[in-house]
C-alpha cells in the first residue's frame, strides 16, 4: 500500500476517534428529548403511585423508578470485587449499605457517562431536583421517596455511604459530565412504604 493511502487511513481514524470523544457525551440528550415527547415521564409517574404494577404478572424485579430523569432500571447486586462488571451493567447497590425493607441508608451507584456506554444509567441524575418523587420496587413491594437534598461532594467524602437512623435513599454518580472530579449525590427520604 502506498504511504499516502496509509496516511489517509490514519487521518480518518483520528477524525473518527476524536469526533466520538466530542460527540458521544452529547448523544443521550437527543434520546432524552425524544422520550420526553413520547410521555415517558407521565408513564413512570403513574408507576410509582401505590397500587400500580410495574410488571404485568408474577414477581417484580428490584428496580428504581425516577420519573424526572426518565429512569426505570433494575437494581443490581454484586460484590466489591465485581464492582466494575456490575456497574457496566447498570445500577449497583453498594453492598455495605442497607436495603429499602430494612430501613437505614440504601446507597445506589451508577455511571453518568462512559465511552463504552455513553448513556450511563445516571446520566440525567442532574435533572433530579429537591421535591421530586421516586420509587423503588424491592421484594415485590413499592417504596416511595421524596428528594430531600442534591449536592456535589469530593470522591473522598464517604460519609454519603454512612448508615442512617431514618430510612433514606442515596444515589450518586460522577460530575461534571466531561471531566468528572466530584460526585453528584441525591438523597431522598422515605415517604410511603407497604
Amino acid at each position, binding site marked *: 500500500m502506498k504511504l499516502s493511502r496509509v496516511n489517509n487511513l490514519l487521518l480518518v481514524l483520528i477524525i473518527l476517534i476524536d469526533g466520538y470523544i466530542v460527540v458521544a457525551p452529547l448523544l443521550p440528550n437527543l434520546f432524552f428529548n425524544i422520550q420526553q415527547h413520547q410521555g415517558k415521564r407521565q408513564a413512570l409517574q403513574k408507576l410509582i403511585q401505590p397500587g400500580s404494577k410495574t410488571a404485568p404478572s408474577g414477581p417484580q424485579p428490584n428496580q428504581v423508578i425516577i420519573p424526572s430523569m426518565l429512569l426505570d432500571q433494575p437494581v443490581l447486586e454484586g460484590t466489591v470485587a465485581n464492582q466494575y462488571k456490575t456497574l457496566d451493567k447498570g445500577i449497583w447497590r453498594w453492598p455495605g449499605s442497607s436495603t429499602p425493607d430494612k430501613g437505614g441508608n440504601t446507597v445506589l451507584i451508577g455511571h453518568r457517562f462512559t465511552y463504552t456506554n455513553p448513556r450511563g444509567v445516571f446520566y440525567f441524575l442532574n435533572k433530579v431536583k429537591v421535591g421530586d418523587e421516586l420509587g423503588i420496587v424491592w421484594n415485590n413491594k413499592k417504596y416511595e421517596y421524596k428528594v430531600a437534598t442534591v449536592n456535589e461532594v469530593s470522591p473522598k467524602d464517604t460519609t454519603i455511604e454512612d448508615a442512617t437512623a431514618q430510612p433514606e435513599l442515596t444515589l450518586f454518580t460522577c460530575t461534571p459530565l466531561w471531566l468528572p472530579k*466530584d460526585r453528584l449525590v441525591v438523597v431522598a427520604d422515605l415517604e410511603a412504604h407497604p
Partner: protein
Amino acid sequence: MSEKTKFWILLVLLILSVILLIVLQSNANKVLLSR
C-alpha cells in the same frame, strides 16, 4: 512535507487520541469507586 513525515505525525496523533480516550474512560471509574 514528505509523506514519511506526515505518517509519523499522524501516527503520534492517533496514539494520543487513543490514550485520551482511555484516560477519559478510566477517570469515570476512578471518581465513582475511589474510597
